[in-house]
């Protein structure tokens, strides 16, 4: 089977509107979360969110295009353009025909859907905008990327809640590794802020009214975020043949299902996905130096995830450097796996591991090294990026510095 490398990364998030801002934010341990500004939420129990600040669609799209594409799909295109630009790929006819697009999204065109429902249910209007359906569909990001670059190969979207884009990258990885496609554009995007969905998150009682403090004893929930990350991945041979410089290797991918509970995670299920990723990469647990954790900052996730790492790594768990970057860019749901994979790659290749910010106090039940508050210089060869979704669907990517 072929080796698969990443040759381009694009990111748009609350922690930065492009890859370099995002990289700088990770290296500074900056918080990209603030009061939600795009939605009136004075009657919610929380106010914080990681919004993409100062985003003007017309900076990126013609006014007509901007009208036709929901915010989440716009983010997908913006990130894909940046990844493609970095990769230096030139789209030949053959490459357009053969390349794949696999994206992840959990809630699709949320603001478009919300507007349509508002019009009919609340305002009693007799009709909604005709673009509501195509703007709302979760695959709108994949379709927009396909049109942007004229890519006509396999293209689809995976929706597995908070694991969506980790599953998407894993799927694209397997397609390139098998020889089905030489190049794939893969990642995820999400723009989940609407009044209705914020009320739904409020009802679950898992969102912090203050800040997201993963693994800290005083953690009190997650903070939602929006954004996208896209990767250009290709076979190592293909990258070298066109003179590209690979940034990192996708070494393996592991998946599992908890078969346990719709919202409560299972340590055994998560540990299984970690083991599968290590096995797929053909590496020993001791070779992993860094883990970008799922680390939502909820009471249950962080304890269960810690337990899973003990199960999967044994004695080596204590020697792992682990961080949750969600405290900086928020929980971006269907984009989380891709944004965090990008964070892990930037950490590996830049030699500085991103911290878990807002960490106040060690929790006896979370007894590992979470890189509290301060970014850390480290020479790490292998890292994992973990995603453990509601519904018990787990996806773990194994990454390697080149």
């Amino acid at each position, binding site marked *: 089977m072929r080796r698969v490398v990443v040759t381009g990364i694009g990111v748009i998030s609350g922690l930065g509107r492009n890859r370099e801002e995002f990289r700088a934010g990770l290296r500074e341990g900056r918080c990209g979360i603030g009061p939600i500004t795009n939605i009136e939420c004075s009657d919610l*129990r929380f106010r914080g969110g990681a919004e993409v600040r100062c985003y003007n669609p017309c900076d990126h799209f013609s006014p007509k295009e901007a009208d036709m594409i929901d915010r989440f799909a716009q983010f997908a295109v913006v990130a894909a353009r940046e990844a493609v630009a970095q990769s230096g790929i030139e789209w030949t006819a053959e490459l357009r025909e053969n390349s794949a697009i696999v994206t992840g999204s959990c809630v699709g065109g949320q603001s478009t859907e919300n*507007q349509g429902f*508002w*019009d009919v249910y609340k305002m009693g209007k007799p009709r909604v905008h005709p673009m509501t359906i195509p703007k709302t569909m979760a695959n709108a990001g994949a379709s927009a990327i396909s049109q942007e670059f004229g890519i006509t190969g396999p293209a689809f979207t995976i929706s597995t809640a908070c694991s969506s884009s980790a599953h998407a990258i894993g799927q694209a990885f397997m397609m390139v590794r098998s020889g089905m496609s030489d190049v794939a554009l893969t990642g995820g995007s999400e723009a989940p802020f609407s009044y209705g969905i914020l009320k739904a998150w409020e009802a679950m009682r898992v969102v912090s009214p203050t800040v997201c403090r993963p693994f800290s004893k005083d953690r*009190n929930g997650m903070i939602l975020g929006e954004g996208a990350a896209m990767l250009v991945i290709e076979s190592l041979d293909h990258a070298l043949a066109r003179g590209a410089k690979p940034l990192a290797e996708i070494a393996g991918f592991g998946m599992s299902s908890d078969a346990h*509970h719709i919202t409560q995670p299972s340590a055994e299920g998560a540990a299984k996905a970690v083991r599968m990723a290590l096995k797929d990469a053909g590496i020993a647990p001791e070779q992993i130096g860094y883990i970008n954790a799922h680390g939502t900052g909820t009471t249950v996730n962080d304890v269960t995830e810690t337990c899973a790492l003990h199960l999967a790594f044994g004695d080596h768990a204590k020697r792992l450097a682990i961080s949750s970057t969600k405290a900086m860019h928020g929980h971006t749901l269907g984009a989380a796996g891709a944004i965090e994979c990008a964070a892990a790659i930037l950490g590996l290749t830049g030699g500085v591991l991103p911290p878990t910010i807002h960490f106040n106090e060690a929790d006896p039940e979370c007894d590992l090294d979470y890189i509290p508050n301060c970014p850390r210089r480290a020479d790490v060869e292998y890292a994992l990026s973990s995603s453990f979704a509601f519904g018990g669907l787990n996806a773990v990517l194994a990454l390697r510095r080149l």
Partner: protein
Amino acid sequence: MPELMQTDELTARILRIIAETQRKDPAQVTIDSSFEELGIDSMDGVNIVFALENEFNINVPDEEVKNIRSVRDMVDGVIKLVEAAKATAGNPPETAPKTEPGDTAPAAS
């Protein structure tokens, strides 16, 4: 809500709601039942609190929900909130969504 609701009556209503939301025989749910006995997990707890908030027109803060470990905790907590609401007589807590008429949903554009 009747003006002078007896605690027993309130308790009975709360137990009935717990039974209804959990699709249990009401006879099974007593004030001394543990969540373990009833097979109630944390997500079930959140669902029950949602039903209780609707039934009694109260708001239960997130922090209090985290501290609920038993049926008795739930009953005590709800009675406290219902009585607090009664104390502000003539001024019941609002739970209906406060929305202003407008052409635009309160959403990102």
